[in-house]
């Protein structure tokens, strides 16, 4: 018997069975037990965030100390900001609800986050121009669909010619929804199979060693 393998499998089985019972039955004891397990899950995932911070220190601290990579100063900046946010959050005693924390977040991180996402607009514009070429039949289908969806999504066109909105809705309805439902049903069946295999111990990939 390999305890390192069997104990996690037993825990998985137990928790999985309680989760399934909670979904399909109304026993109060099962509900209460699963509530405790769910709360453990939330705590564990919050703990994983702390573990992530420790890992960031380990990886980037090494880069800063070695200074062999050209971009080591970015690692230093990352660690400096990490310490700054933690010190301000803990120092004020109000964590992320403090005015000081909100100020540095709004002044530093917020513009960067918005810029990163917004810069996609430029690359998508260039990508659409380069890629959407009706080179053959399949590409022509993609081209026509893409153009109709872009027209339907551009506020001024449906407002001026409502037919473009109806065309977009039709593409999103029977075509996209139909195809996506097929995909989701396939994924759902796969997830059920994976769940059952995990529950009975046939799937052990999540343990990371077997």
């Amino acid at each position, binding site marked *: 018997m390999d305890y390192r393998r069997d104990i996690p499998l037993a825990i998985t089985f137990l928790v999985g069975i309680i989760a399934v019972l909670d979904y399909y039955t109304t026993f109060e004891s099962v509900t209460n037990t699963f509530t405790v397990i*769910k709360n453990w*899950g939330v705590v564990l995932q919050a703990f994983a965030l702390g573990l992530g911070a420790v890992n960031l220190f380990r990886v980037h601290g090494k880069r800063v100390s070695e200074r062999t990579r050209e971009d080591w100063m970015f690692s230093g900046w990352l660690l400096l900001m990490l310490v700054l946010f933690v010190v301000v959050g803990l120092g004020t005693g109000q964590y*992320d609800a403090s005015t000081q924390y909100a100020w540095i977040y709004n002044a530093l991180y917020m513009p960067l986050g918005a810029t990163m996402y917004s810069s996609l607009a*430029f690359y998508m514009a260039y990508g659409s121009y380069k890629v959407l070429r*009706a080179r053959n039949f399949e590409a022509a289908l993609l081209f026509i669909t893409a153009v109709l969806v872009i027209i339907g999504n551009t*506020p001024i066109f449906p407002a001026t010619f409502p037919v473009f909105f109806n065309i977009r809705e039709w593409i999103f309805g029977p075509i996209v929804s139909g195809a996506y*439902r097929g995909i989701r049903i396939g994924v759902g069946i796969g997830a059920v199979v994976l769940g059952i295999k995990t529950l009975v111990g046939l799937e052990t990939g999540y343990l990371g060693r077997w």
Partner: protein
Amino acid sequence: MSIWEKLMSIPREVIMALVFIAILIPALNPLGLPLMVGSMSQAWYDTVDNMPAGSIVLFDIGYGSGGYPSLGPGNIAAFHQMFENDLRIVMMATDLEGSMMYPLIMAGVKPESNYGAVYGEDYVFLGYIAGTQTAMAGVLGDLHALASADYQGTSLSSLPLAAEVGGAEDFDIVAYMTTAGGTAEGWVYQAYSQYDRPILGGCLSMMTTSIKPYYDSGQMLGLMDGIKGAADLEFLTGHAGDAIISSDILSFTQTLVLIFILIGNVAFWMQKGGGK
């Protein structure tokens, strides 16, 4: 190099510079271009409008700084409508940055001065709860077993609204706005499938294809798709803001993209046909 070959390979810098100009013109000088309200945003608005005063909404702020430009304005418009209709809102964040979005949204809504709302009685913010679907299941299962305080550390039992809700059965509707596909679908699994709670969803435009099937099947009662949906909500609620301005930008930039796509294709076929 022929003219068609040149048009097939317009430099990246030129396209990006023109897109920048197309963004800049309506941003500096909003034109108020016409807008057609989409059926999904209309459904969101009608659903909230038909809810009786005092109904409790569980609202997930599931986005951060990256998603704020798209979802923030819609979130503000949605809260305006909810406070106007005297709905009570229990807010939470499944995104780590959601708790940082909360003050920005509230600064736009100003529930105390605009609607006479009182924190703790009319709205409550639980803060970030880790675990995404585990967090959803926890809040819907037994809120007080999961969280004992709001985001500022105030005991939930001392906040009348929080004390009133125990789990899914106390929420009249679940609403979310998120940039994460897992969160958007997670609420359908956790709130609709398990507890039969009606759902309103908000997501980025690029997520619409994967989320809309849940709206089409009736599992979601309304869907706000990105900045266009946000502009619709601002228009419907009468609280024009950043989304309506962004709607002009969207019209400009997407028309420009369409022109480039057409130029690329015309040039491709002319060049293929031997045109010089």
